[in-house]
């Protein structure tokens, strides 16, 4: 999805994992995904560079749909739809 499209998304839940290092964001995402329903959207805030590569791979394995990334000044917003 393009940044414009992503910006319009209203996420069902936001996981703020800024300030944690690997595997912090991944574990936070794993914990939070259990609290939303299938088809709902989760957004992860991360300041860890590696997360941008890791979360898409995690989504692939868990069959969640990775929607894309919005880059903010000091962190990234990663969007995914729960399978």
């Amino acid at each position, binding site marked *: 999805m393009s940044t414009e499209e992503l910006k319009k998304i209203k996420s069902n839940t936001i996981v703020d994992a800024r300030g944690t290092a690997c595997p912090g964001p991944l574990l936070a995402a*794993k914990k939070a995904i259990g609290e939303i329903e299938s088809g709902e959207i989760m957004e992860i805030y991360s300041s860890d560079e590696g997360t941008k590569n890791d979360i898409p791979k995690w989504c692939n394995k*868990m069959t969640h749909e990775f929607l894309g990334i919005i880059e903010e000044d000091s962190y990234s917003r990663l969007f995914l739809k729960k399978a």
Partner: protein
Amino acid sequence: MGTELETQIADLKKQVNQLKEGTKDQLSMVVFSGDMDKILAALIIATGAAAFDMKVKLFFTFWAISALRDPAKNGKGKNFIEKMFGMMLPKGSPKLKLSNMNMGGMGTAMMKGIMKKHKVASIEEMLKTAGEIGIEINICEMSMNLMGFKKEEMIDYPHMTICGVATFLTDAAESKIQLFI
């Protein structure tokens, strides 16, 4: 002739069963080293794998067992040598040293400072997380005996078992990933 065929059939049946069982979505790791950095790496991989919904089984053996000692607990009924070992080996994860650049403890202290700055979880925090997400820790009984460690001096961990090499082999055989750290 008849018995030969029977043996062959039995062999084939065994192989088919193994194929049927296949490998599980499971990570099996031997944690051997008692170095702080290596234990940390093992725990990062383990918790990461658990986030991937993999079943994770850690087999702690030799020096790594020091990381599971509870600084506040003591083992009972130790002989002289066991007491000596107990004194010389790190009593719990906060006492572990870096495998490189320890520099008499200075390097390790510096590394802990850097870890805090980068918000990398400590081994104690990682072990707590590992327990919460169901990672299994199996401790090699033989190593425990060699080092003179007792079960009662280990940390309170929800999924901890004392076992032997057969447990590791069974776990490893059905795991997709096996590691030795």
